[in-house]
């Protein structure tokens, strides 16, 4: 019994106490009882958990094991003897792994996600999905630095991540943001307590020829508490209470959603070094633009640059013509956000408000650039409105 149940328990780290324990916290208490060989206590705890969350399926699996262990020795965790579809039982086992692992393997207090180089003042939170852990981490913006405040079990695409085509049932990997807030009453029960669409495919996805659409963060139907770790058509699915909690932090159009294979944790000094290098490159780009020395300005663009149908040659020709005609140019940047792009090597999304004034034309726009490191220098590989 213990051996089989402990197979899902990866360590012995004790867990922090929570003020209002979630079903997941309570499940972990059940496993603590099992580890301590207090099986009656485990049963009491799992029964109470089921009473309160009768649609929390994983709890029933554990309860089944605790009961069956009284009748005969267990062969495995989730010792279901009937012939059932493999993925059903495997989904619950994977969920148990994911939940317990996430609770036991906490990032150290002083570690920061390497992706989040800079948040701008109005971005109160950033959401990050660690697909390997089936986990969504919520970071608050603490003076520009991300501070982990909560994390939740999530369901991702049936076929994993790295979405490329419509219908491939995969979750995209990349840097996105929430584009809308769809309340429950506008949706069918399938989406549970609400939905937050994200901007997949983004500019980079399109350039890479990635297809599909309609990637949302959403809830679950009434009859379930949550779904298996890999069960959606590509969406990021949370339990309804968790979605509601996350929803409290979401600002439409502002909140970044970064989806990665695995969150890379780094220390503050390294993140700051990288941020400073990017900020310097951006500032250089701005001043070179203002200088009206078009060649210096164009030196910031990669030979692989492409945007709105223009390659570098077309872009350069256009810029030489426009910039050459100006008597003066003033560029102001504000609300700058910078995120390393998951999967890609040395690749950063920079978004900012651009206040452009010149002798001929003035305009203010939200701009997005993708920067890539070529040799020692950061270069722009895409630029467009953001």
């Amino acid at each position: 019994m213990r051996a089989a149940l402990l197979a899902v328990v990866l360590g012995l780290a004790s867990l922090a106490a929570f003020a209002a324990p979630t079903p997941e916290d309570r499940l972990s208490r059940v496993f603590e009882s099992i580890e301590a060989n207090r099986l009656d206590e485990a049963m009491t705890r799992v029964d109470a958990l089921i009473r309160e969350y009768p649609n929390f399926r994983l709890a029933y699996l554990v309860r089944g094991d605790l009961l069956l262990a009284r009748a005969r020795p267990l062969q495995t965790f989730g010792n279901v003897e009937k012939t059932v579809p493999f993925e059903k039982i495997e989904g619950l086992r994977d969920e148990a792994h994911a939940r317990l692992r996430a609770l036991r393997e906490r990032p150290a207090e002083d570690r920061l996600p390497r992706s989040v180089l800079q948040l701008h003042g109005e971005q109160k939170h950033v959401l990050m999905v660690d697909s390997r852990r089936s986990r969504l981490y919520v970071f608050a913006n603490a003076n520009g630095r991300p501070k982990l405040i909560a994390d939740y079990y999530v369901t991702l695409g049936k076929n994993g991540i790295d979405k490329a085509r419509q219908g491939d049932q995969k979750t995209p990997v990349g840097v996105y943001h929430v584009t809308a807030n769809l309340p429950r009453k506008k949706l069918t029960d399938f989406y549970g307590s609400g939905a937050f669409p994200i901007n997949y495919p983004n500019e980079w996805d399109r350039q890479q020829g990635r297809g599909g659409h309609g990637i949302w963060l959403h809830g679950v139907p009434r009859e379930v508490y949550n779904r298996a770790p890999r069960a959606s058509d590509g969406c990021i699915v949370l339990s309804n209470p968790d979605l509601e909690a996350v929803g409290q932090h979401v600002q439409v159009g502002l909140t970044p959603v970064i989806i990665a294979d695995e969150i890379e944790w780094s220390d503050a000094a390294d993140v700051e070094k990288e941020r400073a290098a990017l900020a310097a490159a951006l500032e250089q780009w701005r001043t070179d633009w203002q200088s009206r020395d078009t060649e210096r300005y164009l030196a910031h663009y990669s030979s692989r640059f492409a945007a709105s149908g223009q390659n570098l040659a077309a872009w350069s020709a256009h810029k030489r013509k426009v910039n050459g005609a100006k008597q003066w140019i003033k560029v102001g940047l504000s609300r700058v956000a910078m995120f390393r792009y998951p999967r890609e090597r040395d690749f950063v999304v920079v978004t900012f408000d651009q206040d452009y004034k010149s002798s001929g034309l003035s305009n203010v726009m939200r701009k997005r650039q993708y920067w890539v490191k070529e040799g020692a220098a950061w270069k722009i590989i895409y630029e467009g409105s953001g």
Partner: protein
Amino acid sequence: MLSLAARMAGIVCALALAMPALADDVQDAAKLLKAGQHKQALERVNKALAAKPRDPQARFLKGLILTEQGNSKEAIEIFTKLTQDYPELPEPYNNLAVIYASQGQYDKARASLEQSIRTHPSYATAYENLGDVYAKLASQAYDKALQIDSSNAAAKNKLSLTRELVGRPGSTVVAAAPKEAAKPEAAKPEPAKPEPAVEKPKPAPEKPAAPAADASAEILKAVNGWAQAWSKKDADGYLSYYAKEFKTPGGEARDAWEKTRRARITAPKSISVGVEAAKVTMNGSDRATVTFRQNYRSDVLKSNNRKTLVMVRAGERWQIVEEKSG
């Protein structure tokens, strides 16, 4: 339902019944029930109850008859009332559980069986039934986990109804209680007796020179000795097979457990305990696990269940440190 009859045995006669006529009616009703003449059995037991409405044997029998007739509702009422009037008797709990299980009410069945075992920690039938109920509940939990419809669960239960009320034959608990209470007094001077009983397994050292492989022969000999002492209703001999560190099944104090065992061993008129298909697994040279089918038969109860004894070497003999049914 077929299997409900699996462990049927003769009704224990209320030897100490004050009223022979009543005893006759109960006996007759039991015979009629055994013969499948439910209606006549019911008439006869009702007659007995008319004379003595509180008699537990008669009420228990009526519960059985009603169960056989498929009248679960009234049977539940009777057994429930019996558990209230005689909370120390394990059988009404067991039978309540069997009926609940047949209705698919496994949580109720479980509660009832756990109560039965709390009452009598060594009550084999309840253990066996409880094992089945746990497995059933587990299966239901798995079905919920996997969203499978488990509506046909009630069809396959194979729990055993207890046919007999083994508790003291006295017709009221008031009569029974003093008897049980009297036992320990008789037992108290006896702790010396385990010494003579030790002689029984002594033949075992006949093969002391044999290497470890032969320990299993010694162990089986001890198991057989234990079963024989039990069969002879030799409570002292029986208890001498239990090591000092024996883990009582309900975690109760050794004294309390011994008291219960003495009562259970001496109550029936006759007992026979068979050990079948025994298998010894050595855990080191001084510890072994023995599993076998225990075929228990008394004038009041028949049971055949798996038993596991964990035994340790204590000097030249082997003693039981743990006993598990099912």
